[in-house]
C-alpha cells in the first residue's frame, strides 16, 4: 500500500532546479533553495555551527558559520546556514578574517558559558588557549534551538525568548512551569550545551517496569528480531498525534514510507492451514505477595532483568538499581508460580537455564555476589550441565531450597538498606537470611489469558494446565484435533528456544506438505442427511464437535459439510428422526457386516 503511494508522489515531482557555485575553489551543484552550508556539506567541507538544526528554519544567530561570499567584485561576510546557494557565487569557508571572527565569537561565548563542552571543543579547534573576556558560569548560549523546535516542530509553544539585549534569556512565560509543555524532551535533545534537562531524568531514577528493549522513542522497532523488522509509531507519545506537528521521521525517511494518516485495518485472508504459535505469558509475581514484587523497587521479574541486560535498551545494557547505582549482590529466586501447588504444578523448564545465564552475566558485568535459590537444578539440555558446573567454579552461590520471603526489615546491621531473602537451605538443613540489593524472580511460563477463546475459535482442545493439546503426544505432536491447524512453541507447553524451533519446523513442514499437494483428502466415512426425513430440528448442529453441520434456513433442513465431517457418528446416534446416516456405516451395512462375521 505505502509503496504504491510513494511511487505516485515521486513521479509527480518535477525535476529539481539546480544551482552551481564555488566553495573553496571547488565547484558544486545543489538544489535551488538550499543554503551554502548544504553545498559545503556536499563537498565534505565542515563549517562549524551552533544554532543550526536541519529541521527548523535557519536562524543565523550564533554567527559561527560566517563565511566569505564573493559575487563579482563584492565581498560580503554572511552566515552559511541561511545564505541561499546562488549561481556563480564564490564561497570561502576559511580565511584569516573568518578565523578571527569565529575565534572572537567563541571567546565571547566562553566568557558567558565557560563550562560548555561544545564550546571547549570549538575553542580547541580554533586554538583558543584562554578567553580574554573572562569565564562565565551560564549554561545557555541563546542559540534558540529549543525555542524554535518547541514552536516549529513540536508546536507546543511552551518556551520563548524573553527580554532583549544583554538581558535576553530563554524561559517559560512568567518563569513558571508551562502548562503547554508536553514533556516531549525535544528541547533538551537539541540543546547543544545540555543546559535544558527533562525533569524526570534529572533524578536518574530507573523504573524497571518501564525499561524497554530499544531506545525510548515514539517510533521504534518493537524488538530487535521483530518480524517484519519495521518500526511502529507509539501514538500516545508521538508528537504528531499529540500536537499535530513534527513529522520529522517522515521528512528524513529516504523512501518516504512513513504515513501518519494510515489507520489500523482488519483483514480477512483465506488460507489452507493455520499454525498457532501464540506463545505464553509470564506469571504475575504480584500474586506471590511474599516476594514483594511491586512493593520493592528492586524486586524485578526475569523479563525486566533481561531488558536491563539488552545492550540496545534504555540502560544500554547496564544492570542498575532503581537509584541508578550498580548492585553489589543479587538474589535470583527460581520457580515463582511453577512447581507450586498453589499456582502451577508443572515445571516451566527454561528458568533454571536463564537464571544461570543471568548469574553469569551479573558476575561478568558487575562482579556482584549472586545467590541462586532453586528447588532442583534442571539442566538437561546439551551442554547445559557443563555450564552449571562452570558457574559453580565462577563462585555463584547456589542455595537449594525455596525462598520463603523477601523483606526490607533488617535484623542485623549488614541487612541495613538491603532486601533480605529468607529461605530454608535444605542442604545445610537450616533457615538462612541473605541480604541482597536486588531480587530477580523467575516467573512461571503460563498459558495466555486468551487461549481458551482461541481454542474455541479453532476447535482445539487444551490440557489440564491450560496449554493447547496436540492431537497425539507421540504420533502427532504438532497437529490438533482440527485438520489444517497446527501448534508450535510455548502455546503447547513451556519449552526453550531449541525445542520451540524444532517444533515450529515440524509444524511448518506439515503445513507445507498440505500446500504442496494442492488438495486435501477427506474421510470417506462421513455423515449424510436425508433431506426428506430431516425436520430441521437442529439438534445435530450444536452437537457436532467439528461444526460440520449447518442449518440451511431457506430449505429448513440441516446439511453436512463433508470437508469438516470426521465421521464420528455423534449426529447419527442423536438424530431423533433417524435422518442421518453414516457413509460406509449405514445400518444395513453394519448389519451385513455382523452377519458376515457371524456366518
Amino acid at each position, binding site marked *: 500500500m505505502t509503496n504504491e503511494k510513494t511511487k505516485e508522489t515521486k513521479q509527480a515531482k518535477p525535476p529539481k532546479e539546480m544551482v552551481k557555485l564555488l566553495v573553496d575553489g571547488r565547484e558544486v551543484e545543489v538544489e535551488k533553495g538550499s543554503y551554502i552550508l548544504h553545498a559545503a556539506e556536499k563537498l565534505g567541507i565542515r563549517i562549524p555551527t551552533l544554532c543550526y538544526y536541519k529541521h527548523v528554519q535557519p536562524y*543565523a*544567530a550564533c*554567527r559561527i558559520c*560566517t563565511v566569505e561570499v564573493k559575487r563579482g567584485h563584492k565581498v560580503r561576510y*554572511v*552566515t552559511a546556514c541561511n545564505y541561499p546557494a546562488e549561481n556563480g557565487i564564490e564561497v570561502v569557508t576559511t580565511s584569516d578574517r573568518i578565523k578571527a571572527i569565529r575565534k572572537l*565569537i567563541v571567546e565571547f561565548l566562553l566568557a558567558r558559558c565557560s563550562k560548555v563542552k561544545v564550546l571547549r571543543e570549538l575553542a580547541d579547534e580554533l586554538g583558543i588557549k584562554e578567553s580574554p573576556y573572562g569565564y562565565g558560569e551560564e549554561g545557555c548560549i*541563546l542559540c534558540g534551538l529549543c525555542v524554535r523546535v518547541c514552536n516549529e516542530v513540536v508546536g507546543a509553544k511552551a518556551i520563548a525568548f524573553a527580554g532583549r539585549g544583554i538581558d535576553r534569556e530563554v524561559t517559560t512565560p512568567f518563569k513558571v512551569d508551562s502548562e503547554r509543555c508536553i514533556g516531549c524532551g525535544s528541547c533538551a535533545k537539541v540543546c547543544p550545551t545540555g543546559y535544558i534537562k527533562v525533569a524526570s531524568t534529572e533524578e536518574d531514577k530507573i523504573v524497571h517496569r518501564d525499561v524497554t528493549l530499544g531506545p525510548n522513542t515514539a517510533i521504534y522497532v518493537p524488538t530487535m528480531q521483530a518480524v517484519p523488522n519495521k518500526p511502529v509509531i507509539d501514538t500516545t507519545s508521538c508528537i504528531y498525534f499529540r500536537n499535530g506537528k513534527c513529522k520529522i521521521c517522515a521528512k528524513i525517511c529516504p523512501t518516504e514510507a512513513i504515513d501518519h494518516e494510515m489507520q489500523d485495518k482488519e483483514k480477512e485472508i483465506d488460507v489452507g492451514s493455520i499454525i498457532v504459535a501464540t506463545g505464553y505469558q509470564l506469571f504475575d509475581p504480584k500474586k506471590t505477595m511474599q516476594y514483594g514484587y511491586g512493593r520493592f523497587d528492586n524486586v524485578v521479574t526475569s523479563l525486566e532483568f533481561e531488558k536491563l541486560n539488552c545492550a540496545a535498551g534504555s540502560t544500554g545494557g547496564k544492570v542498575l538499581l532503581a537509584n541508578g547505582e550498580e548492585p553489589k549482590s543479587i538474589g535470583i529466586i527460581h520457580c515463582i508460580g511453577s512447581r507450586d501447588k498453589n499456582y502451577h504444578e508443572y515445571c516451566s523448564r527454561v528458568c533454571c537455564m536463564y537464571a544461570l545465564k543471568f548469574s553469569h552475566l551479573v558476575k561478568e558485568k558487575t562482579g556482584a555476589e549472586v545467590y541462586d535459590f532453586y528447588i532442583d537444578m534442571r539442566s538437561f539440555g546439551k551442554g547445559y550441565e557443563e555450564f552449571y558446573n562452570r558457574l559453580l567454579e565462577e563462585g555463584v552461590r547456589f542455595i537449594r531450597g525455596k525462598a520463603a520471603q523477601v523483606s526490607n526489615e533488617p535484623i542485623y546491621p549488614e541487612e541495613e538498606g538491603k532486601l533480605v531473602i529468607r529461605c530454608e537451605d535444605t542442604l545445610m538443613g537450616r533457615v538462612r537470611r541473605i541480604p541482597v540489593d536486588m531480587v530477580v524472580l523467575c516467573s512461571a511460563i503460563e498459558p495466555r489469558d486468551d487461549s481458551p477463546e482461541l481454542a474455541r475459535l479453532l476447535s482445539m482442545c487444551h490440557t489440564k494446565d491450560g496449554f493447547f493439546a496436540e492431537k497425539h503426544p507421540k504420533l502427532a505432536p504438532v497437529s490438533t484435533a482440527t485438520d489444517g491447524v497446527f501448534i508450535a512453541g510455548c502455546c503447547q507447553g513451556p519449552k526453550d528456544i531449541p525445542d520451540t524451533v524444532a517444533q515450529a519446523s515440524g509444524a511448518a513442514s506439515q503445513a507445507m506438505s498440505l500446500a504442496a499437494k494442492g488438495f486435501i483428502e477427506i474421510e470417506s466415512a462421513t455423515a449424510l442427511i436425508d433431506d426428506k426425513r430431516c425436520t430441521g430440528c437442529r439438534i445435530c448442529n450444536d452437537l457436532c464437535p467439528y461444526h460440520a453441520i449447518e442449518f440451511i434456513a431457506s430449505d429448513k433442513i440441516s446439511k453436512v459439510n463433508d470437508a469438516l465431517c470426521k465421521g464420528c457418528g455423534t449426529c447419527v446416534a442423536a438424530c431423533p428422526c433417524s435422518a442421518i446416516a453414516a457413509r460406509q456405516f449405514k445400518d444395513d451395512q453394519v448389519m451385513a457386516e455382523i452377519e458376515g462375521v457371524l456366518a
Partner: protein
Amino acid sequence: MIRTWEDLQEIRKRGAKKIHPDKIKIAVGTATCGLATGAGDVLKAVREAVEQCRLDAIVAETGCIGYCQKEPILDVCIPGFPRIFYSEMTPAKAKQLVEALAKGEHKPEWALGKILSETNLIDESVFNYTMEKAPIEIAKIHNLNDISFYKKQFKIVLRNCGMIDPEDIEQYIAMGGYHALFKILTKKRPQTDLIEAVKKSGLRGRGGGGFPAGKKWETVYKAPGDVKYVICNADEGDPGAYMDRSVLEGDPHSVMEGMIIGAYTIGSNHGYIYVRHEYPQAVRKFTKAIEQARELGILGKNIFGSGFDFDIKINRGGGAFVCGESTALMASIEGDVGEPRPKYIHTAEAGLWNKPTNLNNVETWANIAPIMARGADWFASIGTEGSKGTKVFSLVGKVKNTGLLEVPMGITLREVLYELGEGIPEGRRFKAVQTGGPSGGCLIVDTFGWKHREYLGDTAPPAVSYVTESLIDLPVDFDTLTEAGSMMGSGGMIIMDDTSCMVDIGRYFLNFLKEESCGKCTPCREGIRNMLSILDGISEGRGKPEDLDRLVEIAQVLQDASLCALGGSAPNPILSTIRYFRSEYEEHIFHKRCPAGVCKALIRFSIDPEKCTGCTVCVKACPENCIEGKKQKPHRIDEPKCIKCGSCQEVCKFNAVVIQ
C-alpha cells in the same frame, strides 16, 4: 468629498482664508518642544487674555518653526501687518502682548522676526503681507530669513511646519498640498514615470543608510504579487534627532501625500505608519489627519474618483530602537518581537507578511510631493553630486542656537556650527560633532593640541587610521560622513564642547545599545557587553594598554559578522572616537585622568579659593553636606564624602568649583 479640480480649489481658498484671516490671528507653537517649555500655559494665557480684552482674534495652535531654542513662540498675523513671530514667551508676557494688541500697540522688542512675503514651494505662488498699517517700529524688526539661524536654510520638508495649523487639512491644501497627488491620480500618470522621477531626483532614504529611494520603489513595483504594502517608518530612534516628530506634529499631511503617491506607484492598497509610542502628540495629529483625509476622499476607496483605493493604519511602537530596522519594524507590526531577520532577500521583495513592501522614513515621504510638484530636475539641482536635496538636522547639545534646520546637502560643518548655530555658549571650546546616533560617530572639531602617545600595540600597523585634523570644513552629505567614520543617520547633530569626555560618549552609546540590541546574534549581544566592560574599566581607571586594540578587534568583527545594521554599526561611536580622540583614551588608560572632567572615578571636585566668594550657595546645594565654609570665607570640599554629583558646580555663579 473632492472629485474635481474645482472642489480642490474651493478648499484651497477656504484654507487660505484660515491662514491669513481678516482679523487678528495668534498661533502658539504647541509641538512637544513648545509644550516642554510651557507653551501650554502660554496658550491658556493667550486665550484668557483675548477673552478678557474682548479682542476679536482667532487663537490657533501650530507646529514648530524649528528654532526650538526660542520656544515658546507666538505667531501673530494682523491684517495690514507683516507676520510676526514672538519668541521666549511666558504666560505673563503673552498676556501683556495680547493686552497691547487690544490697544493697538505692539511689543517689537520681543519679536524674533517678521515675514513680509511667503512663497509657496509647491506652485511658487506668492503671498505678500502689506505693511500699510504697520508702524515704524514694526518695520524695524528683522526679517526672519535674515537672522543667522534661518539665513542658510532651504525648507522643503519643513515648509509648512509652524506656518499652518497641522490639524486642518484645508490649510495644507491651501499651501498647495494634495495638488500633485490629484494630478497624478486623475491623469493616471504611468507608474514608471513616477519611478523615473524619483530616480532622477536623486532622492536617497533619509532614515540613515541613504539607499536610493527610486531604486527601492522600482524593485517593489517590479516584484510579483497582488498585495503590496507601503510603510512609513516613524520610529525615530536616534537619540538627538527629532525632525520626524516635528514633521508629524507640524505637517502630517505632507507625509501622507507622499505615502499615497508611493502607494499608487507600486500598486499598494494598504499603508502603515509605525510611530514611536514616545511621540503621543504625533500619533494624535496623524490620527486626526487620517480622519480628515478620509472625509475628503483622499484616503479610502476610490480616491479623487480615480478608482484607486488606499488606506493607512497607525501602529504605535512599543519602545525598541531596533524596530527602526526595517525587518524588525515589520515583525513588530505583525505583533511579534522586533527581531531583525537576515536581509539576504530584500524587504522590497518579501517584507511585511512576506509581501513586497516599500518602507521609507518620514522625511523621505515628505520630500515626495514637492518632487512631484516641482519636478525631479528642480530637486536634483539642490545639494551635492551624490546627495540631492536638503536635509533636516537637529542641532542640539552645547551650541547656542538649538533647533531644527533644513539645509541643502553639502553645507559645511563650519557653516552649521558657527553661522546657524552661532557658536558655543559660555566661552567653551568646540570639541566634536556627533552624527548618526548610535550608528554614527563623533567627528573631531578641535584637537586641543593633544598628541597621541606612540602606538603601543605590537609592531603591526594600527587597524584604524588616526586623524587629528579638524573636520570643521567637511561638507555634510551621505558619503562624506560615511567616509569620515560616521553616518548621516536621521540627522541628529549633537555638539560637544571640552566638557564632554569621548570615553564617556562611547560608554554612553554602548550602554544605550546593550539595552536596545535585540540580543539575537552573538557578536552584537556579547560584543557590546564586552566592549562596554572594557570601556567601564577605562573610565574607572582600570584601563590596560591592550584595551584599545581589543576594542578595535571586537569592533571589526561586529561590523562583519552582525546580523543586522544595528550590530554592524554599533562600533561606529567607538571606532570614530578612537580614531579622532585616541589621545583622550590614552589619558584615561595611562595617566588615569579624564581631561574633560566627566569620568567620576578619575576626577575630584575642589573649590578654587581665589574665585570663591563664600556665598554658601554650594553648601546648601550639596546633598551630602560635605562642603564646609563660613560666609564670605572660601569653602572647602570634604573629598572622602564627596559623591561627585556636580550639584555645587551647577549652582556656583563664580566658576569656583573646579574639576581635576
